[in-house]
């Protein structure tokens, strides 16, 4: 089905997917010769950080910030994936410059397809929203948040969501 048909028939969500919904699976380039699939991480929490573009002119931009906080995410055995519509070569340059230690995925072809599936594509701008999605080990969305496009949402929401996930797991296992 062509993208136009899909859109006119509203097969994409109108707004960001929320907790409880199954996270749409995807495979995207994480570099010029590598690909990453959401299903690669089944069994662990996954943080999807959608952001509009690489190379914003501040030191502690959102991806650099998460790079700093990575050890805290690892404590929950969570994987962080950054996603923007930039191509894989742009991501590689940006990632090397900021010394990022997590994958940046290129939602490049078809442009913004994964962002659309998550309800976080900005048609007018041609970029994704600044949106955070936390997915549990079973592939279900546990928490999501859309920040105003010019406000870096930081990491507190992510950490709270990860804590809630792990305490839910403990409750279920009857500890």
């Amino acid at each position, binding site marked *: 089905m062509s993208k136009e048909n899909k859109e006119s028939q509203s097969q994409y969500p109108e707004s960001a997917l929320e907790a409880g919904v199954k996270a749409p699976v995807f495979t995207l380039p994480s570099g010029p010769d590598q690909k990453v699939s959401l299903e690669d991480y089944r069994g662990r929490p996954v943080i999807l950080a959608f952001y509009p573009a690489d190379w914003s002119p501040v*030191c*502690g931009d959102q991806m*650099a910030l998460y*790079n700093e906080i990575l050890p805290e995410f690892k404590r929950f055995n969570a994987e962080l994936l950054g996603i923007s519509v930039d191509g894989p070569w742009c991501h590689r340059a940006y990632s090397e410059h900021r010394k990022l230690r997590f994958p940046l995925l290129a939602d490049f072809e078809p442009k913004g397809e994964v962002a659309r599936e998550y309800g976080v594509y900005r048609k007018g701008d041609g970029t994704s929203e600044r949106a955070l999605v936390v997915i549990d080990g079973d592939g279900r969305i546990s928490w999501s948040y859309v920040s105003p496009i010019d406000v870096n949402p930081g990491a*507190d929401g992510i950490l709270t969501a990860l804590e809630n996930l792990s305490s839910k797991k403990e409750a279920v296992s009857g500890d």
Partner: protein
Amino acid sequence: MAISMGAKLILPVGKRDHILGSPNAAVTLVEYGDYECPYCGAAHAIVKKILAITGDQLRFVFRHFPLTQIHPHAERAAEAAEAAGAQDSFWEMHNLLYEHQQALDDAHLLRYAEEAHLDTVRFARELAEGVYRERVREDFMSGVRSGVNGTPTFFINGVRHDGSWQMESLLAAIERVMDSP
């Protein structure tokens, strides 16, 4: 979808903090900053001007948020400020660090300690032993949990300031809080 509510400071200002200005000030400005970050360097001058304008209506608190992955000297500089603080000279060192952002290697940190008339043997030993690493980490994590989203990040009476931190905008935001009932 979720509405953006101002992020809130989760660690209230207290005895552990470095506080500049009147203890009874109605408004508190907290900054999470990195000594090697050029934007924080610019903000340093702005904060000084704002403090001069607001007098005893404002007090200022600085907490460390070193971006160690991109600023190789930031962590050490933060520990140097804490080491100076242990000798009652936090703000002197803080100023020296922001005035010499291009020179934050260990040799220069020692020179600043001399300039601040610190016990340099104690200073050097404490830095080498990482005595203040935990303290800097506490600051950093409190920032993370409060929604710090880059450097500098400012909180005015515990609410993250999401506008520009250029002079006019930051001062206006502070004055809005001062004037509110």
